[in-house]
């Protein structure tokens, strides 16, 4: 890993200079995404799934439904949980073992986008109030890590939920046939930027992430309200940075929504 760190250190300055001059390594504009490919319904054993390729980054999201007891303070709602595994096939720096802070943060930021936008109509997932509800488990399986896991995972998770069915439940047993579509009312979409020098770059590639000063993920609802934000990295942001990134996200959101959700 030290060797890898050294390589990034060496690459850092020329790339920074390039960015300073208004350019990105791969020729994209600062507010431009890499190519996106969406493969829905990838895993037939899941109630919903989606494989997203964002440049070379690949994330597979799968949704499973199970029966559980509702939380005491929301007896008339289903429950959601999001997990992420940075499985070691995806990068040389990912090792087997329990989720580390990066995997946990990834899962929680994706979770917040879904939860805070009120994407899922949780009140329609009740089987017996206070006793039995559907638990929606979203699992993010990162297959290839070439930067911007946040957005690839957000898109994969939301698309997986959009094609998720609720199974039948008869005689205390789940029958894995469609009873109805998962009831959804919103499509949260996240936008991740890295700050390099004074510039904010949308959809960072791996190399851009490695030399980043700071990072920001902004999740928008369909009416372009903020529903989740998360700062990363160790350098500060100024108010102007925040304004610029929010504005950019709002500006590009309509096109991106078309690309990833239709």
């Amino acid at each position, binding site marked *: 890993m030290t060797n890898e760190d050294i390589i990034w250190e060496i690459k850092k300055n020329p790339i920074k200079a390039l960015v300073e001059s208004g350019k990105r390594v791969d020729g994209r504009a600062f507010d431009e995404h890499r190519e996106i490919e969406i493969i829905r319904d990838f895993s037939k054993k899941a109630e919903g799934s989606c494989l997203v390729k964002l440049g070379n980054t690949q994330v597979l999201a799968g949704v499973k439904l199970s029966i559980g007891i509702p*939380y005491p*303070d*929301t007896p008339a709602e289903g*429950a959601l*949980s999001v997990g992420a595994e940075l499985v070691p096939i995806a990068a040389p720096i990912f090792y087997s073992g329990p*989720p580390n*802070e990066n995997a*946990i*943060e990834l*899962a*929680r930021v994706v979770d*917040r986008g879904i*939860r*805070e936008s*009120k994407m899922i109509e949780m009140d329609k997932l009740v089987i017996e109030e206070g006793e039995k509800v559907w638990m929606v488990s979203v699992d993010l399986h990162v297959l290839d890590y070439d930067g911007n896991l946040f957005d690839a995972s957000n898109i994969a998770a939301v698309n997986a939920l959009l094609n998720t069915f609720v199974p039948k439940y008869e005689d205390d047993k789940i029958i894995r046939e469609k009873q109805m579509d998962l009831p959804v009312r919103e499509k949260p979409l996240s936008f991740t930027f890295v700050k390099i020098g004074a510039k904010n770059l949308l959809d960072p590639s791996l190399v851009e992430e490695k030399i980043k000063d700071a990072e*920001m993920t902004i999740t928008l*609802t369909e009416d*372009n*309200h*903020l*529903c*989740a*934000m*998360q*700062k*990363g*990295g*160790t*350098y*500060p*942001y*100024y*108010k102007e940075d*925040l304004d610029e990134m*929010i504005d950019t996200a*709002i500006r590009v959101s309509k096109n991106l929504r078309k690309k990833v959700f239709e």
Partner: protein
Amino acid sequence: MKKEGEKKMGMKSDVQLIKDGKRIDGRNFDELRPLKIEAGVLHRADGSCYLEWGGNKVIAAVYGPRECFPRHEQDPLKARLTYRYNMAPFSVEDRKRPGPDRRSIEISKVSRQALERVVFLEYFPRTSIDVFVEILQADAGTRIAGITAASVALADAGIPMRGLVAGCAAGKVDDTVVLDLGKEEDNYGQADMPVAMLAGTDEVVLMQMDGDFSKEEFDQAFELIRKGIKQVYEEQKRALKEKYEKGIEGDINDQ
């Protein structure tokens, strides 16, 4: 989730959080909950801080610069900074199982990152500077209370820094943007945005948000936070001044 101290913004409720221009606890929209900071409260730690903020009770301790274990985490160019946010089992309504959960691991990460460029880590290569934050009583806003206390504990430990980090949150309740959510506002409100800045500058070092903000509400919230942080900073300075006026006592005989 809930058991991890998770909040969920925007739960439907009949709770009226604003009435006659005042908030449920009688505060104005731009008013902080009572805040009290004390530096140097622990004997063993190199630096420490006790903080009460509304119903929060937080203690922070700093050890270091000290030897870095395990060895392979030593950095020849700078100190390693660690940050551990931890809730006492009895600090919340339903007993929390001891040990780190997903929520506290995330908070520890964003808090550590907020401090990493503020502390002059390069002055102490190969060492470790370890920050520990214990939540003894939790109301809303513990992560912000924690980093505010941690920053005072770092100063109390004599660790050189570019300045103090001070935090504050703003949120939305009953469609109104207000400063520093209390527990009920947090439970039944519509948005929450915890922010920490390098006090006295415009540098945002920690920022998270959840709920629902239009861009205009975001701007309002940010402005409230900026003013709130000024007050938090004053209390931090007061606490440190008080500690140094009391003089440094008795530490020589400690091992």
